[in-house]
């Protein structure tokens, strides 16, 4: 989790976005039919599909405003732009962010470009090999050749074994 000061800065931005989202939800809900007449007589607004989203949208705006208020009270709005510029300029040396971005990117490549487009076992094997190589090799303390062999075994056997359990025992086809 972020530090308190950073969190309050993030709260200023996030709560504004959430208030906008709440407003968008309310607007979309108002576009939904409200004048339902199932049994004749007066319109039954309470059966409208927009009722529940309207309640959610209103609460979202109110609660996000509360977060914004707290963030402003604690000075989250002060120095917001310089803090963002500092964070961006420090990205090059921010190793935890690199690692988080890398694993997210690997998963996105695996899911959006691999699954359903190439053989699932191949896609999974490549993902496992790349992920383990990037995150485990630097701290394994073993020679490279040993790392490659262990990683290759895991990358090949895991999709094969688990895939077989799903296909042969549970009759679930692979993507």
């Amino acid at each position: 989790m972020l530090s308190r000061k950073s969190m309050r800065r993030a709260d200023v931005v996030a709560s504004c976005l959430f208030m906008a989202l709440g407003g968008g939800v309310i607007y979309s809900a108002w576009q939904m039919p409200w004048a339902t007449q199932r049994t004749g007589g007066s319109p039954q607004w309470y059966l409208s599909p927009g009722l529940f989203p309207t309640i959610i949208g209103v609460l979202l705006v109110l609660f996000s405003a509360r977060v914004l208020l707290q963030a402003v009270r604690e000075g989250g709005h002060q120095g917001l732009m310089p803090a963002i510029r500092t964070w961006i300029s420090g990205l090059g040396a921010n190793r935890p962010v690199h690692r988080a971005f890398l694993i997210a990117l690997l998963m996105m490549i695996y899911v959006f470009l691999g699954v359903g487009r190439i053989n699932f076992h191949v896609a999974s094997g490549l993902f496992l090999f790349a992920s383990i190589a990037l995150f485990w090799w630097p701290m394994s303390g073993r020679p490279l050749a040993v790392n490659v062999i262990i990683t290759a075994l895991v990358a090949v056997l895991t999709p094969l074994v688990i895939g077989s359990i799903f296909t042969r025992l549970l009759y679930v086809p692979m993507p």
Partner: protein
Amino acid sequence: MQQFFYEIYALATPINMAVLFGSVITGIIFGALPGLTATLAVALLSTVTFSLPVELAMMSLIGAYVGAIYGPSHSSILMGIPGSAAGAATALDGYALAKQGRAGEAIATATVASVIGTVLGLFALIAISPVLVALALNFTSVEFFLLALFGVLICGSLTAPDMPVKGWIAGLFGLLASSIGIETIQGYQRFTFGIPELAGGIDIVPVILGGFAIPQIIRVLRDVHLGERLASSVGSLWPRWGLIARSKMCIARSGAIGVGIGVIPGVGEDIAAWSAYDAAKKADRDPESFGKGNVTGVIAPEVANNACIGGAIIPVLTLGVPGSPPAAMLLGALNLHGVRPGPMLSFEFPSFIPQMGAMLFWASIGILICGLTMARLSVLVLRIPVAMLMPIIAFLAVLGSYALGLNIFNIYLMLGFGIVVYFLEEMGYPVAPLVIGVLLGGMADVSIRRALLGSLGSIEPFYTRPLALILIGLIILSLMFQSDRMRGLMERGWNRLIQRRSTDTGAAG
């Protein structure tokens, strides 16, 4: 109760026992390994057991659930690093005991305490469920809407690490996600943006896998881990029977705390463990010894977190509201198998609740046997590098998301959801109320419209029905958690209660 004892006998078939023990072992491994959680274990196993008969599937999920709540005690004691939040309190005294060469004693005591906690939880399940069912049969749509709202708000209040209002916002996101798709009363498409895959709504399994697996994978691989400080040997696996016998009051108190917290929607075993640890420390004659190897500091949280399991299942079966994140996954699995939890469960499946109690009984036997047997193996299991495990978990999450509907869109949903939840959690928005919101949103939406239909648009039933007024009172209480004064008041009251009980009993435990 008779039905419960019959179910214990009826469930004792070779296949059931094989599945149960296999699942318990899987659960213990998931619980012991840092980065893996009970919710993940239950979620992944629910995809594997989808095509099995309901009884066998539930046996597996209950076994994994109980094992995964007990499992963190191994890593807490051997490494000082809990495998999941449920074992965090155990690490304080458990690891201190391991450093004194008493790791085996600590693991054995934790195992016995977990068994006792599970048994207390199952008896609470059998005793309290009929009462709640009788109450819930008087529920109308008004009460179900207020119950869903209360579930989201109290979960948000208690799980938000920063401000309670952030927990409520997370719950609102879950409620909003649940409204995506064709709504049930008028068949109108909401928030589908022309994407046909969204017309059927959001499946719960990709949401849970995305919400619990993906952020954890990113976080674990992002943070640099210190070298493992693994205890070198386990030693004698014999519990302190005398101390366990003398800790009757502590065990009873911890069990009550575990069940009580388990019944509260969305609040999990970790809070039960910490609350019980805190209560045991305050009630002890020598509170300064806690954190330095006091065995009571292992007994209390382990009884509580396992008793919480039975407590969490009570609202699942009687109200259709999950008591904890793993119970939320259990609720999802029940729905997948066509079992509709709620007040009608006792009529549609009369033996279901005693059967669940019997499964918990067998699972407690499972952790007794497997937990002690695996104690020495845990040292090996805990050496598996998490940097190798996390990509495998990602692979399992992809496969699990696909397995249920054979729909690749669910995989996209799982990953997208997971990345959004990661950013939300970094900003202090908890995932548990979000998942509760997705689970309960459908019920809330339909209930409020039905309630208003019955009263022709009037909100009078909301303030004239006694049960509705009670629920509104509980909602106001959870909203008041925002106030520091209110939280301070409750903490002072809790401390006074614990200290008065320890004065009355005159002895720790």
